[in-house]
């Protein structure tokens, strides 16, 4: 217990504790997060499928089988969602899911909330501004306290990269990363992959270009890991200043010319220019960004491509995407916007994640 206290203090002070990581001493079972799964590769290098998945902190290291499993589960839920009197069996009845959001969110938070309720689980809202975090409580303490209230799972959004992984080590309850800093946003990438798989039939060999502020984007990172694992090809396109260093070592293609990226791709994931995250100093102006990297009809016509267009939202209209491209679903023969379809798919994906992590024995 003493060392746990040290560890907590170290989280607050940023200094390393004297002893070993206390969680490794297993006052509760060793956590099988995705990193753990990666380490548990079988001799033929096939990762163990999702039966062992306790948390979803990211898609990095998640096996292709786990991804496929989640997408398949989501496909089942989506069928039900589409039916006129959608009703799901309350497999998560009496479960309490804490939505721990240290950053603003509308879409993701609502989506998790609806997904949880569809499965019969209760949700507890949390927003940093109105909580004891504003009194200086550490992230770990907040989580441990909620855990002591017998919460069954955590959905975490936090401005610091790595925070989801961190709390997955200090709680035995499932942790679902709903976006941590510039690191990962796995459910967003899963819903993007779900949307693409549903439209194209398969992700194998699909050419996906991710356009925009890749440097600061957790959506981009999760999509890169997930799409590559699922056998798709990934291209990144943006101004050099917003492409992270050594990006090609992740196994992606790089473009600075949007026309070329479009010509290469089957589909585009347009990223939000993160005005609040200092994309600012990396660019002279939004107008110049828009001129060179905005996805517009003019550009799509010039390259003769009818791309399927995805965007994680919220969109900056006429900056990274033109109104026409963002809003057009019909007719065929033009680019097709999947923006609202993605939002619906987000429910199915989050239901699949909750069901996978929380389903079965409590």
């Amino acid at each position, binding site marked *: 217990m003493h060392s746990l206290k040290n560890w907590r203090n170290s989280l607050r002070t940023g200094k390393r504790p004297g002893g070993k990581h206390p969680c490794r001493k297993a006052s509760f079972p060793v956590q099988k997060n995705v990193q753990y799964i990666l380490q548990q590769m079988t001799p033929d290098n096939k990762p163990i499928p999702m039966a062992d998945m306790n948390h979803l902190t990211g898609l990095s290291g998640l096996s292709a089988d786990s991804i496929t499993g989640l997408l398949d589960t989501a496909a089942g839920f989506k069928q039900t969602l589409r039916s006129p009197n959608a009703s799901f069996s309350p497999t998560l009845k009496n479960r309490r899911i804490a939505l721990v959001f240290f950053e603003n969110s509308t879409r993701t938070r609502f989506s998790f909330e609806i997904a949880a309720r569809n499965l019969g689980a209760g949700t507890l809202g949390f927003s940093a501004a109105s909580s004891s975090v504003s009194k200086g409580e550490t992230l770990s303490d907040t989580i441990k306290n909620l855990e002591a209230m017998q919460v069954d799972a955590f959905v975490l959004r936090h401005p610091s990269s790595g925070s989801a992984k961190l709390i997955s080590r200090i709680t035995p309850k499932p942790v679902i990363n709903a976006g941590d800093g510039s690191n990962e946003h796995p459910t967003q990438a899963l819903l993007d992959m779900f949307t693409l798989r549903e439209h194209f039939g398969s992700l194998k060999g699909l050419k996906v270009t991710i356009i925009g502020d890749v440097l600061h984007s957790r959506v981009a990172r999760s999509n890169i890991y997930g799409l590559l694992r699922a056998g798709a090809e990934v291209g990144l396109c943006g*101004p*050099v*200043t917003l*492409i992270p*260093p*050594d*990006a090609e070592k992740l196994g992606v*293609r*790089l*473009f*600075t010319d949007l026309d070329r990226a479009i010509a290469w791709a089957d589909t585009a994931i347009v990223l939000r220019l993160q005005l609040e995250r200092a994309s600012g*100093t*990396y*660019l*002279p*102006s939004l107008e*110049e960004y828009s*001129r*060179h990297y905005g996805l517009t009809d003019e550009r799509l016509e010039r390259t003769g491509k009818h791309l399927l267009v995805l965007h994680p939202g919220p969109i900056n209209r006429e900056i990274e995407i033109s109104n026409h491209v963002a809003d057009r679903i019909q007719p065929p023969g033009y680019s097709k916007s999947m923006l609202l379809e993605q939002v619906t798919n987000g429910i199915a994906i989050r239901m699949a994640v909750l069901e996978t992590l929380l389903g079965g024995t409590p």
Partner: protein
Amino acid sequence: MSILFQQARLLNPVDGIDAIGSIRVSEEGIIEKLSIGSNPLTPEAGERIIEMGGRILSPGLFDMHCHFREPGQEYKETLESGAAAAAAGGFTGVALMPNTRPVIDSPLGVAFIRHHAGGLPVDLEVIGAMTVESRGEGLAPFGKYASYGVTAVSDDGSAIQNSQIMRLAFEYASNFNLLVIQHCEDRSLTAGGVVNEGMYSTQLGLKGIPDISEAMMLARDLLLLRWLEEHKLHDPLQRPRYHAAHISTEASLNLIRQAKKDGLLVTCEVTPHHFTLCDEDMFNAEEKGSYIMKPPLSSARNREALLEALRDGTVDAIATDHAPHASHEKQCPPQEAAFGIIGLETSVGLTISQLVERNIISMQRAIELLSVNPRKIMNLQPISFKEGSVANFTLIDPLIEWKVTADKLHSKSINTPFIGKTLKGKAIGIYHKGRLQET
């Protein structure tokens, strides 16, 4: 009316020509006939004949570092007077630094200069500011520059002091394949300085500028470039191109040598005044105003290092840093004097007197440094003498001796330390834009 340049020394490193020959240029300014050999071409009826008598006909000279002060400081120089000085000095094109008032940091500024350049005898290439108002903070619109045909950016007059902003500028410049031209100066070391720091600054009681302040900034830039090349700016992205302006010290030249050896896309220029003068000349001068510039005239040892670097090919270009200032800004105590001197009309003379005559470089190399290389560095079309090419020439008399006098200068300002000096070698005319202009 076509023009026949009869019996010139045709010297064009682009085509690998250095021979006596004759050239006919059509009325439209196109090279119609090129004839190598000492047999003159037969003149056509009504043709104007220029007897060159073995004097040099080279591709048009290009000065990649000029300040024409317009807009904003037209009392020092205007685009028109600057262009006249360039033409008189034998230049058919110049690149203008953006530190005017306002700073050229937008397509509007570029358009302003383009608008006024049309009727002038020489080409004006616009260098865009690297940061907004050259304040070293926010990036300027490189994408717009590129779509307006700008090929280089610089915050000349200063360097971006903040390394993160410099790094972003390198990245963003490579995004649009723009050349970064750096005025290497660590401002924390040079603030308040007037002349080279050393014995002479001590004797004069003037605040010194340590010569390492140049290499300090250059070293930072080269470290950044190496890191960026390793981690980002390599295939398939554009590699960064970097040009160090007015290099004046041995330490900088050693850094450039090593960078070139390491394969970085790095070039550098020197000015005629830095390879001609040193701080001792400043010390001995009665009126010091025209000896005050940045970087300052450095030690004799550094000047020797420049000559060695010219000899061994480390230096890629000669540029004047033509910086006009009015008399009241120069005839004042040194620490109040504006930095910079004019150079367009003495560049050829100093290059020939100081370098060619003293066998430091060949005449052919001089043309490379004054024309071929600066055009190449700026990504401009090479000038060929092949038949069918657009005629763009400078006519040079390498033997003529002439005295620099204030009343013969075409620049609006006369802030040069070379007034009263006798030089050997002079541009005697240019042919450009279909017109022959003799001086």
